[in-house]
């Protein structure tokens, strides 16, 4: 076998995913009898609904990707990751609604806030390791959740009702221009995934993996591990902020539940379903989680979250490597089998 390492072959999976997801609304439109042209003009209810579900999945996948980079690749388990997401979502909402800022200004502001937040978390990084870091991040995020929920901020955040009525710029309004929103979210996800793959394969990314495996050894080799951790934190925070911004633009209201521990657990669950430290697992996990949640909620109502919790426990106990991780582990065993099967079909030369 020749070692073909061009960009297209290396990223075959994600590119096929990109193409399929781009075509999906049009194909689904055919089922309900609307032509691709109608879909282009944002008509057809079924495909619009599918696009909406897709956007939610992409947002969750972006969030889970950023979590996987932090936890799966670098080994920093943060229980305050939802804060990155929620700060961006609330900031977008407040900047658009209360401050009436221009859209691109809001984007810049949110990204800047993401970096500042990452630096705030990084402040404790050099001193605090392992479980204590988890505790500190949990504490910081809880404070944010409490502040969002408090009645003092009701004019800005809407307290426990949530932030409602955010004026979304017309050109990406999820009501009238949903296809465009869908394509933007998809493109952002694919671009982020490609960047992450490249990042993990780069020398910087390798050091991050080394930090996960054994931080003291990485230090001994002469790497200033703190700087690498800060870099990862900033990248992760920027990605989570992007997801949060999309969430704020897409959802009709921003509920404070995205700031609590439960949302971090959701991210953790997605990464766990997909496979910790696999990157592509985040996307697979987001699909599995959202579709499962959707189906359960439809048929079981309120008890769905209980079943989701049970699935979480089952995954922790019995499928610790997740879907992607398990497949990759089995691949060594299944590959010869596949080749034997193919050899039976193919004429031997």
């Amino acid at each position, binding site marked *: 076998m020749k070692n073909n390492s061009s960009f297209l072959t290396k990223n075959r999976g994600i590119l096929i995913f990109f193409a399929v997801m781009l075509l999906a609304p049009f194909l689904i439109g055919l089922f309900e009898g609307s032509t691709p042209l109608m879909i282009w003009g944002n008509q057809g209810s079924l495909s619009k609904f599918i696009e909406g579900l897709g956007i939610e999945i992409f947002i969750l996948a972006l969030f889970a990707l950023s979590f996987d980079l932090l936890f799966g690749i670098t080994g920093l*388990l943060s*229980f305050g990751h939802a804060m990155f997401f929620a700060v961006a979502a609330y900031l977008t909402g407040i900047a658009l609604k209360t401050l009436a800022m221009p859209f691109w200004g809001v984007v810049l502001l949110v990204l800047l806030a993401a970096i500042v937040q990452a630096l705030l978390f990084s*402040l*404790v990084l050099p*001193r*605090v*390791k392992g*479980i*204590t870091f*988890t*505790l*500190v991040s*949990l*504490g*910081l995020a*809880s*404070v944010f959740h*409490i*502040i969002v*929920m*408090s009645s*003092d901020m009701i004019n800005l955040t809407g307290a426990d009702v949530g932030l409602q009525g955010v004026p979304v710029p017309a050109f990406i309004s999820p009501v009238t221009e949903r296809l465009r929103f869908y394509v933007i979210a998809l493109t952002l996800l694919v671009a982020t995934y490609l960047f992450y793959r490249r990042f993990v394969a780069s020398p910087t990314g390798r050091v991050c993996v080394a930090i996960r495996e054994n931080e003291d050894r990485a230090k001994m080799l002469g790497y200033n591990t703190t700087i690498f951790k800060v870099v990862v934190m900033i990248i992760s925070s920027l990605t989570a902020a992007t997801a949060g911004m999309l969430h704020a633009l897409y959802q009709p209201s921003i509920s404070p539940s995205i700031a*609590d*521990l*439960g949302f971090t*657990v959701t991210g*953790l*669950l997605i990464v*766990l379903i997909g496979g910790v430290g696999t990157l592509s697992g985040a996307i697979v996990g987001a699909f599995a989680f959202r579709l499962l949640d959707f189906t359960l909620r439809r048929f079981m109502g*309120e*008890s769905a*979250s*209980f079943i989701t*919790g*049970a699935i*979480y*426990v089952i995954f*922790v*106990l019995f499928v*610790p490597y997740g879907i992607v991780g398990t497949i990759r582990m089995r691949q060594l065993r299944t590959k010869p089998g596949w080749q034997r099967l193919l050899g039976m079909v193919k004429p031997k030369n």
Partner: protein
Amino acid sequence: MKTNLRKNSKAIIILVIIAAFLFVAARGMSGRDVLITVLRGFSTGSVTFLVAAGFSLIFGLLDVLNLAQGTLYMIGAYVGWTVYVRPDTFIDVLTPVLLILAGFSLSALWGRLASRIQLAPKARKIISWLLILAGLGLLALVLTRYPIAIWNLNNYSESPITYSYMADQGLRIIPAEVTFEKISPFLAIAGLLVSSAISAFGIALLNRNESRSQTINWRKFLVPALLLLGGILAAVFNAQITSWMFAMSTNWLFVIAILIAILSGVGLGALMETTLIRPLYSRPIYQLMLTLGLGTIGLQIVQAVWGRPEFVWPKPEFFTGTGGACPATNLADLLENNCSTVFLLGGRVRVYDEIFIPIVGIIVLIVVWILLKRSRIGMIIRAGVQDRQMVEALGINVRRVFTLVFALGVGLATFGGALAAPSTGLTPVMGERLLLSALIALAIGGLTSFPGAALGSLLVGLIQQFMIKYGQIGIPLPFTDVVFKPSPPLVPASTVLLMVIVLLILPGGLLGSKE
């Protein structure tokens, strides 16, 4: 002494600074306010301590950060409330629980039998899982038909809120009894026992290697037999026990409620450790994620059973007297009239919230301290914290100690919940809030240090209460006329700030070991 001082210089400096802050903070208030705030701080600190102590015991010995502790605290409160306000529900639930426990405690005996059965490993696995599933399915079938008198969340006049309100007014609604309609009592009891025994056999078959060396004597039959007897007695004398409990003085009912809450915590803890935590000792991060997930599931279950709205746990008679010489000015008056408040330095102090809870906290601190320092089990625990492998090498069954410590830690958390609920009320967010306080207390005091947990909890309680007090009276900022009033959200924020500062200076916490 001198080296000791020098070693802990940073911790001492931080403590001195905090003490100075508290002193300065106290200067702006009248003596009455200071006293009440300090007492409230002790009260909050005691409840936090109960949860944090369990946390630090578990983390110290097992290296498991039990993030479900907050939810377990909440479960303790809700279980205690059920026993106190609805004893009939409690007695109805008692029978199935005892019978299922009896069935599962046969598992040790089954192990002996299971080890005789020779099967291929794969077949053994499949058969045991099938047995477990069949047992659980049968159990579900019986349980859904088992009659339990319970509140109705959809009907306001039968909701927990109404029951606790009426109990608070001294008018206990005695709900209608439910009878065996869908299933005959004999069938129900037999079904519960048989189905749990089948699952227990499946479990025994699954891990036969562990129980091979056990011998069988009559003592092994004692626990299942007692549980079985208890379950059947509770079923037969259901009506009598219920009416007896409804007629009982609320003081004794309160004691029973607290005891049941502790027992349920111990049971839940043992169950969690043996079934879920134990397979994951080689993967600590997954343990962390598991306990987090369990906490979330537990929260969902509590919300599904008891509902989302807030309700109160009425205090027992001993703390609610108002007539006669109340508010009491001396101890004799207090004891004679069971006053709800006393006069101290000219201020009214609530007996239950501000005197009783701190006293219980201090008693628990002393008891656990003696248990750790003076008993054999405490010695094993301390040795295990130092070096687990060495203890194992000395021939001590560390596994059993692990289960015990986990059960004890969870029991402390549920105790805290049941103790705090009459003063704070029951809400679905109480667990999350307390988990945060306990984590902060632990991080400040040092994760594995038991005295650290006590010190951290006390600091967290005091700071929270002082911030709340200042939220009411305001802080005059120096050199200006502005009065700054910290709003309620700043209360947890201030403690988190303290935690971050302490951790930046001392990553191991104030009394933690240096790494």
